[in-house]
């Protein structure tokens, strides 16, 4: 398993380089212009000058090479400088966003707290609710609990966040006045009261996001458990006199985790990717809204960098999932 991991890690470098090239070419090919949001009152000659100042006049391969150097060589140096107080990267040009004319990575770092607070919490809450629901629904298939769970999760999944978000706002913010709905990113948690405020402002977006996660994961959990509950080894375990709890939570659960691990691993990069619609509805301004804003403004360096970070996370978490398969089911061998 160790050799497999190392081999995959080594292999992921060319994979990621290839992915970055494909993303770059895709963005290049996509119609769009960083001047799209400039008011129409600005004459075309001025826009042309602004494009040149952004470096758009250079050929594609030059710009791709520049981005590679900036991302893989200069940005790590900046990070080292930041932590150790060195000055390796001084004077070097970093990846600069076209919208804000500031280093992309600085903005990404700025956005991580609210993204993790809201989207990360929602994901964890979602998983924590989904697993028990899935397990119990399968164990008591077609019970009232199972039917209710099915109904709620399926309806929850069919109703998109652009509807649930405003619905919760109307009910809880406008009518009842319990929670704020414009997320305050400047808020800092220092004591109990500020933690309570943080909790209150997180609760609505977390509810919206957790609903989707719960629905998805609990369905896979339930289906997979059902597949395993009737297997021979379960009968054997019961015959051995093991308690129901041990049979279900140890034997069946472990064997049912493979699809669930896949789904959870696929969702992990999405935490960092944020939740575009929900972030927009609640003005969370996390990484999701950063990405969509950059896409609409055709801020190519920002889009390229963000999508590439997601690509790294996707490759990484899929590797983790593959390793977990081997642990969950030792029969799975990759070599």
């Amino acid at each position: 398993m160790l050799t497999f991991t190392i081999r995959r890690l080594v292999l992921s470098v060319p994979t990621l380089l290839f992915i970055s090239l494909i993303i770059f070419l895709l963005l290049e090919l996509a119609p769009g212009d960083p001047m799209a949001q400039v008011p129409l009152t600005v004459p075309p000659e001025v826009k042309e000058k602004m494009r040149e100042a952004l470096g758009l006049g250079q050929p594609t391969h030059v710009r791709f090479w520049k981005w590679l150097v900036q991302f893989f060589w200069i940005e790590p140096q900046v990070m080292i400088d930041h932590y150790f107080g060195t000055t390796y990267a001084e004077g070097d040009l970093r990846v600069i966003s076209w919208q804000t004319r500031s280093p992309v990575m600085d903005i990404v770092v700025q956005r991580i707290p609210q993204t993790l607070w809201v989207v990360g919490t929602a994901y964890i809450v979602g998983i924590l609710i989904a697993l028990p629901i899935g397990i119990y629904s399968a164990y008591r298939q077609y019970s009232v609990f199972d039917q209710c769970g099915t109904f709620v999760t399926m309806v929850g999944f069919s109703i998109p966040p652009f509807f649930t978000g405003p619905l919760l706002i109307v009910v809880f913010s406008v009518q009842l006045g319990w929670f704020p709905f414009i997320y305050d990113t400047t808020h800092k948690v220092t004591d109990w009261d500020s933690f309570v405020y943080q909790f209150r402002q997180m609760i609505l977006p977390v509810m919206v996001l957790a609903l989707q996660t719960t629905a998805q994961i609990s369905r896979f959990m339930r289906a997979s458990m059902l597949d395993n509950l009737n297997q021979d080894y379960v009968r054997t375990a019961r015959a051995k006199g093991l308690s129901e709890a041990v049979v279900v939570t140890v034997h069946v659960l472990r064997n049912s985790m493979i699809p669930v691990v896949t789904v959870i691993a696929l969702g992990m990069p999405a935490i960092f990717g944020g939740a575009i619609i929900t972030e927009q509805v609640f003005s969370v301004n996390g990484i999701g809204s950063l990405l969509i804003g950059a896409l609409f403004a055709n801020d190519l360096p920002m889009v390229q960098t963000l999508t590439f970070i997601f690509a790294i996370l996707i490759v990484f978490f899929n590797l983790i999932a593959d390793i977990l398969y081997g642990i969950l089911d030792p029969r799975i061998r990759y070599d």
Partner: protein
Amino acid sequence: MKLKSILMGAVAATAFAPAAFAERGADGHVNIIYWQAPSILNPYLSSGTKDIESASLVIEPLGRYDQDGALVAYLAEEIPTVENGGVSADLKSITWKLKSGLKWSDGSDVTSQDVKFTADYCMDPEGGCAQLAKFEGVSSVEIVDDLTVVVNFSEPKPNPYGPFMGGQSPIIQAAQFADCTGAKAPECTDANFGPIGTGPFVVDEFKPNDVISMSANTNYRDAAKPAFATLTFKGGGDATASGRAVLETGEFDYAWNLQLAPDVLAKMAEGGKGTPIAAFGTLVERIEMNMTDPSPSLEEGVRSTAAAPHPALSDINVRKALSMAIDRDLLVEIGYGQAGRPTCNLVPAPLAYASDNTDCLVQDIAGANALLDEAGWAKGSDGVREKDGVRLSLLYQTSTNAVRQDFQALIKQWWDEIGVETELRNINASVFFGGDPGSPDTFQRFYADVEMYANNFDGTDPESYLAQHTCDKAPKPESQWQGENINRFCDPAYDELVAELGRTGELSKRGEIAKKLNDMLTKDSYVVVPLVDRGRVSAHANSLGGVVLNTWDSELWNAADWYRIK
């Protein structure tokens, strides 16, 4: 005795009230929300409204336009005119004089050096300045003394209020930006995110595309202002959320540009926490008729260029009938409510330049049908008109936006009633308004028969706006499809009149020519079919006083005068 005490009380009240009222920072905190988040606080590197308006709290120009479009001195002593000698008689130079005793927020003096530096900063050929058009025709900026600068133009400039006037062209501090000129402009992140200014507020923290925290400028020129000690400028979300936050929950005090359907806005206003306010500028929602043939059967290079006139829309009767079939009152009622008025003009304001053309305001389906019948466009078996093998079937495109899609549906129905078949298409705004020469969907490329969007002009003078429709400004493959003459209208008489406007300095004469140009595009030729004069709707909390909505300059132009109603 009694009378005396009452009098005393009254005197005391009048004496104390302004004193208690007029203290910097006495009213605590104010929250502003813009659903588009500011990316940068340097208007010379971005011309987005969100960036210019947020920056206007911090940096100020020499003069601004007020809510009526009149000029008001800000950093300048007074507005220079020909009458007061500030503008030379040949219209080739303008002399600005700074107020004395002005301080930057870091405590240093504002001098003419800063003004000249601002011009040099923007006019640097490598800087990619977003406001370069403001400095068009400027040959030099000379420092006369510490408080006086002269801007010289290479040609006579009937409207010399381009540089240093309005929110797009504020004065930046020379000391802060000295190392940031030319190609180095984007590298000065600290300066671009926190410019030192003369405005009522200073930046404490700037999170790009998210939120700005500000506090009162201790060196602001009026010791009693601003009334608020701190300010939060939140960006992001959508118009619905920001409207709710001000009108329904009261989380915020001011919300910008609430582009919502009138019934939705009215429902929100019932929340009772705030008030929507509207004002009108020069923004006109219009339909542009393509004078060239966008048919996909034509080869690239000919398609949508002057080489191929439009088979149907070249006929003025068709264009006129299309305009006659539209009920502009209903469009306003559905889409804009108090923020819109029906119009037939491309230049709806200011009064001196606005034509009195109103002949399009009444919908006339029967008249349009008669006109088309007369012109030889006969209805076929499927109800669609035809002439010489050309079917009146139009592709109608616009950007993606709920109101525009409602307009499309309504107009499609009316055109259907006069025997014109319409196919609708909506395109993502970032593609539609972008100038990517490789995309077939940009509004300049115009691969459709008619398209709808809104445009306006900066300040109060429509000269460059009207000059957009000259023959040479048509987008074409040779110019990478760049150009402002979207409908490819071409009339030598029009070009001639535009040139005349450029030579004319006298205001009344300029107005006359501008009106004539406006009429040539609208009621004489119907190449531009104006629909709605679009105002701006913003909203403020009922407890926020002093708000005066201004569409000629930054909406936050008088934030120094805002206060909390107790």
